[in-house]
Every structure is written in C-alpha cells, then in structure tokens.
C-alpha cells in the first residue's frame, strides 16, 4: 500500500525533475515544450496524489459507495476536480507553446533557442 503511495509520489517527482532537466538542457524549442509537458504531467500526478487517502475508493457515488458513508469511504475528490482544470489548462498552454514555437522557428529560421537571444542585457 505504502509502496504504491510513495511510488506515485516518486514517479511524479521524477517526471518533474526530468521535465525541468529537459527544459534547461534541450536546445530545440519543441523539445523544450515537450519537456514542459512532462514536468506538467508530473505536477498533475502530484496533485492527484495529494488527495489520495489509503484504502479508499474513487469518489463516485454509485451502488458501491452509499451516499451516507461517502465522506469516510472515498478519497478526497477536490484534487481530482482541480486536476481536470489543470490538465485542460495544461493542454491549452502546451498548444499555445507549440504554436509560438513553430511560428517562431519559422520566422527566425531556426528552432535553436541559443539563437533566439537578440534581446539581452
């Protein structure tokens, strides 16, 4: 049980670290976008994880979970609601990022972030 719990946390943290690592080290802006998505996934996983209560079931009120006992039987539903929003927003951001990245690389003739440094100092 605990193993699962910490595995999820570990995976999430790992995703975040891998994502940030990618963001900081990749040069191609599309790959950077991809790295962001990875990190984002990690964060979302962590968000779901934060509402997880050991030994409880999904927060869906059906025959298995009587409404009266729901409070003590299901995991915290709030993070699950939040993570939906977060995923949606994440998709929007990722889409926008890709658009910007593609257009930028077309305009600038390169997808290498090291060459997008006209503005500095």
């Amino acid at each position, binding site marked *: 049980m605990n193993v699962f719990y910490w595995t999820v946390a570990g995976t999430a943290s790992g995703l975040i670290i891998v994502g*940030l690592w990618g963001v900081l080290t990749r040069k191609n802006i599309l790959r950077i976008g991809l790295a962001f998505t990875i990190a984002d996934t990690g964060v979302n996983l962590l*968000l779901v994880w934060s509402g997880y209560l050991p030994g409880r079931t999904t927060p869906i009120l059906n025959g298995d979970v009587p409404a009266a006992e729901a409070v003590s039987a299901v995991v915290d539903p709030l993070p699950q609601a939040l993570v939906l929003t977060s995923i949606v927003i*994440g998709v929007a*951001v990722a889409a926008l990022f890709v658009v910007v990245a593609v*257009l930028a690389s077309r305009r600038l003739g390169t997808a290498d972030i090291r060459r*997008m440094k006209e503005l*500095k*100092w």
Partner: protein
Amino acid sequence: MVTALAVFLPLLGAFLTAWLTHRNERLSLLITRLFLLAGLAAILVIAARLGAVTDGGLENTMILRTGVMTPPLSIDLKVTGWSALAAVVVYVGALLGVGRFSGRIPGTQPLLLTLVTTSLGLMFATDFFNSFVFIEIGSIITIGLTAAGRCRRRWEVALKTAMISGLVTILYLLAVVIVYRTTGELRLTAISTMTGFPAILVSGLLLTVIMTEIKAFPLSGWGLDFYQGVDKNFAAVYSSTWSLAVLLWSARMLTVLPLPDPGVLARIGAGGLVLGQLAGLRQRDPGRMMGYSTSAYASILLILAGTVHGADYLSLTLLFFTFASLSKTTVFLMADPEEEDDPWKKVSGYVLLLPLLCITGIPPFPVFWAKIRMLTVLADISPLLMGAVILGLFFESVYIYRLWSSRTGPWQKKRKYFDAAFMGAALLAAGTVWTAAGAEQGLSLSGELFRAGFVRDLFLAIFAGGTLLSLPGAFRGGPGEKSPAVWMLVSGVALTLLPLSGNGLTFYVLWEISAFAAVIGVSKGARPSEGTFWFAVFAGAAGYLLLASLVLSDGAVSSPGIPMLLVAAAALLKMGQGGAHLWNVRAYSTAPSTMAAFLSGTSSKAAVFLLVFSASAAAILPLGTSLAWIGALTALGMAAMASLESDYKKVLAYASVSQLGYVIMGIGLTSVLGWTAAIYHTFNHFLFKSILFLGAAGVIARTGTSDYDSLGGLVKRMPLTFTFTLISVIAFAGVPPLSGFGSKWLLYNALVEQGMLPLALVAMFASVVAFLYAFRLLYAVFLGQLAPRHYEVKEAPLAVLAPQGVFTAVLMALSFRPTLLLDRLVPAVASIAGLGGEIPVIEGTALSTSLGYWDAWSVGMMVMGVFGFAFVFYWISGRRPIHVGQLDIGFAGELPPSPEEVHYAGDFFRPFRRALAFLPEIHASKVFGGIVKTADLAGDVFRSLFTGDARTYLLHSLIILTVMILWMKGGTP
C-alpha cells in the same frame, strides 16, 4: 450584482466582439469601449460604495459569490476598497490602450477584454486554485497578444514569456499541492498558519513565483526582454492591466507568506533594487529602461511587504503601483511601435516629461508621497536599508533621465493616437493634484521652519530678485538655444518660496521642483546633452542626500550628526565644491547663457541658504574645519583652472565655484565674523556673477562664440557690457574700493581671529590667482584686437543689459556703503545661537574688529578724489589725443598681420601651466569618470546575468528557489 458586472462585463464584451471583430471592425472597437466604460462605471460605483474614494475605506470588503455553493465549490471573489481602486486603473489603462492597440491590430479586442476580466479576477481572487486559473489565462493572453503584435522580435518575446509561465505553473502547482496536503485548505490566507518545513517550502516556491511574475531582480531578465521586444502599444495595455493585477495579487500574497522573518523580504528587495538598478545604468534601449523601472517597482513591493503593515501597506502599495502603472501606460502610448530601435524617437521631451517624472517619484508627483512615507518607515528600521533604497532610486532616476533627455522629436499634435497619451497625462496630472491635496504630511508654506528675520529676507530678496532680473534675457535664447524662460520661472518661483516653507517636506518639494525645472532649462542650450546629464545627476544626488537627511531627522531639515553630514554633502554638491564642479562647468557652458546666470547667480544660493539655515551652528561645528578646508582648496584649485581655461562660460563657471569656496570657508568657521563674511559674500557673488553671466549672454548672443581665441576688442562695440563686466570683475577680484574687498576683509579677520593662518594663506593665494583669470577675461573678450568678423557687432540686447545695470547699481551702492547691508546683517548673524567669536563693531561707515578696521566710504572717497584729480589734471594739461585704428601699433617698423594673429589670448598663462607642471594632474572629470566607469562595470557584471537565453532565466528562478529554501531552512531550528 454591480460587482459581478464590474468583473464579468468585459468577458461578455469579449464574446460579442469575438463574433463581430472580423465582420465590422469599427463597431467591434466601439463595443469594446462601451463595455469597458460600463465596467469602469460599475467598479466606480463599487469603489464609492466601499468608501474607498474618501480616505480610510481601503479595507472595506464586499464578497462576490459566483456559484451556488460555498468555496471551494464556487468562485469566491473578494473586493476590497483597495483592490476596487486598482481595478479602476485597470479599466482606465485598458480604455486608454484599446484604441492604439486593437485599433491597429484587428481581432485583438476579445483577448484584450478577457485580459481585463482576468486581471480583475486575479486581484479579487481568494483561493489558490482560482488564482492559478487566472494566472494561467492571463499568461496565455499575454503570450497571445505579444505574438499578435506587429514588431519584429515578438516571437522571441512570446517564446520567453511562454517558457517563464511554464515554469511558474509548475512551481505554483507544487506550492498548491503542499498547501492542500498540509492544511487541507485552498484559501490564500490559509498558508499564514503553516509551520515547519512545509511552510519554508511553500514560502520559497511562492516567493520565487512572485519574484518571477513581478520581475524583481534578479528574476527580472525575461521582463526586461519583454519590455524591450514587445509591441509598445500592447505594453501600454499590459502595464495597467495584467502587470498591475499581478503586483496587487503579489502584494496580498507577500503578507501571508509563512516566512520565518518577513524582514528578509525587505533585504531581498533593497539588494535587488541597488544591484538591479545599477545594471540599469548602462541601458541605452528605452524599452529596456522601462523594464528596469518595472523591476525597481517590483523590488519596492518586496521592501514594502517586509516593513510596512496594515493600512499603511494598503495605501502605499496602491499609491506606488497604480500611478506607476498608469504612468507606464502613458509612456508606452506615446511610443511608435513601428520604430523598433527607439520607439520614442519622434516624441518631444515635453510630452514624456510628466509620466516620467511620475515614474521617478519626483515631488510633487504621487509616487513621491509613497516614497517618502516608505523611507520614513525604513529609516526607523534600518538607516542602512534606507540608504540602499535611496541609492537604488537614484540609479533609476539616472537612466530615466537618460531616456528623457535623448528625446528630440517635435510635438506630435497631428498623430491621432496621441489623444490617449494626453488623456493619460491628464489623468496623471489630476492624480497629482488629488494626492498632493490629500498628502497626509501636508505641505505648508506657513509656519516657521526658518527663523524669520533679516538673513531670511536677504535670501528671499536674492531668489526673487535674481529670478526677475535673469528672466528678461531668457525669453529669447542665444544662437542655437531655445528659450528657457518658462523653466527658469518655475525654478525661480520654487526657489523664492523656499525660505517661506513651513516644514521640511515643503522645503524638499520646492528644492526638487526648482532643481528639475532648472535641468529642463539647461537642456534648452545649444549643446545640451552632456552638460544637462551631469547637472541632472548631481542635482539628483544632492536631492536624494537631502531626502535622506530629511527622513533621518524626522522632517526637520537637519539635525546634528549624520543628517547634517548629508545636508552638508548635498550643499557641497549643489555648489560644486570639493571636486563636484564637474557639473557646474559642463552645465554652465552648455546651458543657455541666461540660464547659467540664473544657476550661478541665484540658484546656487539655495545651497548656502540650506547650510546657513538648516543647520544650527552647533550641528555644523564638528564639520567646520573640514568644510573650511574644502572651501579653501576649491577656491584655489578652481581659480587656477579658470586661469588656464579658454572658454568664456567655462571660465565663469570655474570662477563661480571658486568664489563659492570662500562662502563655504566662512560658514565652516562657525563664528560671527565667518558667517557675516559668508553671507555678505553670498550677496556679493549673487550680484557680480549675475552681471558676468548676463554679460557673457550678451556677448555670445551677438558674436555666437564663447571661445577666447575668437573674441577680443569688443569694448569698442559693446562698451556698456564691458563697463558692467569690468565693475563686477574688480569687485570679485577684491580690489578696493569695490564691494568684493569687504568679503575678503571680513574673511581674513575671521580666519586670523580663529588662528587659522594656513587657511588664510590658501585663501589669499586663491584671491591673487583670481587676478589672473579676472584680467584674462577682460582682456581676451573686450580688449586687444577686434576680429574683422565682429566689426558689425552691436551692443548686447537690452533684455540682458538692463538687468546688468540694476545689478551694477546695487553693487556700487554696496561698494561705497557696505554698512547698508552690514548694519542689519551683523546683528542678525550675531543673534544666531551657537556662533562664537567677536562681533564686528560698526560706527558710522567704519567697521572694526579687535584686529583691524575698514571704512569703505572714506576709501571710496579717496579713490574717487585722487582719480578725479588725475583725470582733471590730465584733461586740462594738454590737448586730447586722437583715437587711432586698432592695428596702428608700434610693431618694430613692420606691418602687423591680421587682428586675429595679433590678439594674444590662447594659452595666455602658459608659464603658469609650466610652473604647475610638478603637480600630478587630478581631473575631476577623471575621478567622476572613474566612478561612472566602476558603476558601469559593476552594472555590466549584473547585466551579464541576463544572457537573453530563456533557459538562463529559468535557471535563475530555480537557483533563487534553492538558495531561499536552504537559507530559510538554515535560519530555523
């Protein structure tokens, strides 16, 4: 209901315009405006209902439930009087910018309207997840609108912004996870109860998020790039909407962060302010300068959050950020986005003046009131912190000045988009009046900051008289100059009110107004850039020193100790003493000549006034000897420089600083005789330096040059100017019977009385060296050979001649009857507490001390008598000679070459230069150039953090995050 309208009306408009925008652009724009106006009306109603417009309603609250259930299942918005007022600015900013931005780039109205709603949402949001949603939407719109702009570098900006917001999302959500996990709540205020490691983690994460979002140094890199590269019209909208919203949200968050020690914020802010603004000094790109200024305000937010609490915090943040945002919007509205390198290239300095002054917080503009309140609080906590903040603000004012001063464009009346900018400026002006009227500390011209009495009235007469008499000549600038009359008048009126100010704050406000008006006046010169820059920098430094002193001594202009030291430093800078002459020489020589006359003759006396009045004698005493030595060495050094200089106006500038050295010497003696000498000489200097500079104005106006080598022989063409100049030269050289000797007599009596013989020797040496430049000035300009190109030169214009006549009349009266002044001055000075030494005795026209005596009237009569006798004797003893041509000289039987070749004026005192050759060359310009270079170098070091690679910026954030967490971890057991 009204609340909901206020927030969501723009969103409604967004849906409507999204449908309309490609069908009917004009209608769409109109609808955008209508919705914004309606929203503005709604938010105004709310603000009024909350009592925010009148004082004290900032904390009143109104809750807006947008769902049927209670949080967290509904979006719960909380409107306070504080945020309602800020929301007004959001609407105003959007209204001002929409025409310029959306009118130019079709299809952006829906996004812009959504941005307004999002901004309001963020400002009113009460829980973490709502804030998250708003932050994300805001970022998306920002990226979108950036990319929609029309400038070349928008893609780079958009990409960097997107990457930053990606990182912010991750860090922010991590914080949310920890908060929810630990407290089980999502209210923003919930975190304040957190403790232990989670609290540290959350603080670190949120602080990094906040610093990145508000662009606080060192996490400001992306913000600088943003302001540099973005479409300037979008920046106008952005400044007042999203940027302001983030600032206010951060302002709320910073107060609830569970930091072990909130003072840390102030230290981070102050450090960032100094280093970040130092980096800004090197900026040449105006857009980037605006970015640095934004970063300064971000640092200010951190400082405020760490030091100020309660109602003060609310009002200060509001004052700072709403006005700064509105000013920035106005500045950006004036930009021309088509000009990539310098969007303000075609804008006149005049129109940029008001918003830029607002940004720098010069009194009486609104930010100033917040600034001085903040500094007062800081002074109580840590003077060091206050000093750092003042230094940072000084740096900011330097590059903002640079931004302003490089504008040379004409008025842009015809450009239709300028209306919005003017509207913004008008709103700022209204805000200025409103805040000044409501400024808590209150300005007052009544009351008695300075002892009423003869000395004060004397200075009043100097300020008023000097302004009035310098003014007539200023209406028409000399060759290549514009008229500085308006600014001279503003400066002069402020100066004149100076002695009447009822409290320290009023004094400071008037001082600053006078200074910045003078800076603008100087900028009207023919070659303004360098001179004005140095003047602005030194005047700014003096102003900030004065401000520091004011704040440290709790509103008195100064008190003994550090405040006195600061005041003395300010006065010395203002008078160009001890090496600070750099600005005098550069500004006087490049300013319009009449402006130079005003600055040197009249305005410099403000510093004397400050020293004489602000400081009790007891406060000056510990500094006395050092002051006296600074004065003496300045007098000597500047006299030598004046002798070797070949530019008319520069010579006068050196001479002016040199003469003021005597004043400083006298003040440093802190004796009755010393101060009498100082004030007497101040009045004298006022007279003769005004005459000299006005004379120079006349000469330059007629000949178009101030170079000794090209002048000469003008006595034949400008006899009146020569006469006035001659009289004032004899006066400042201290030759009896004219008034300058009185100053010298009093000063030597004071010096020998105090046993300060070495000082007296230096003074004596300075005064004989003064002969060198005195004669050279008269000779090179007026005597010798008249150059053929000046054969047709006419006498100086009446507008400068008549004032010289008035000054000369007063000078002559003072020369023969110094007791007219001394009769009143001596008792007045003797009554100043704390001055030691003997009081000179006046009997009839004679003045005496235990050391010696002097009777100006009888000396005058003797000279007139003997001279008159010689004159008459010559007249009656033979025929009058005839006047011959200028080249009819005994030239060893040869024909003299051209007049220019015979006129010996350049490098006149070459042997003097040779005799001085053993001295190491110390140039003030090198010293200050060195300081500037060092600052630039240091600035470059910090600037090099911002490599332009977006990944570096992300790395900065992560490093700061790690450092902060480790630091706080180490700080708590």
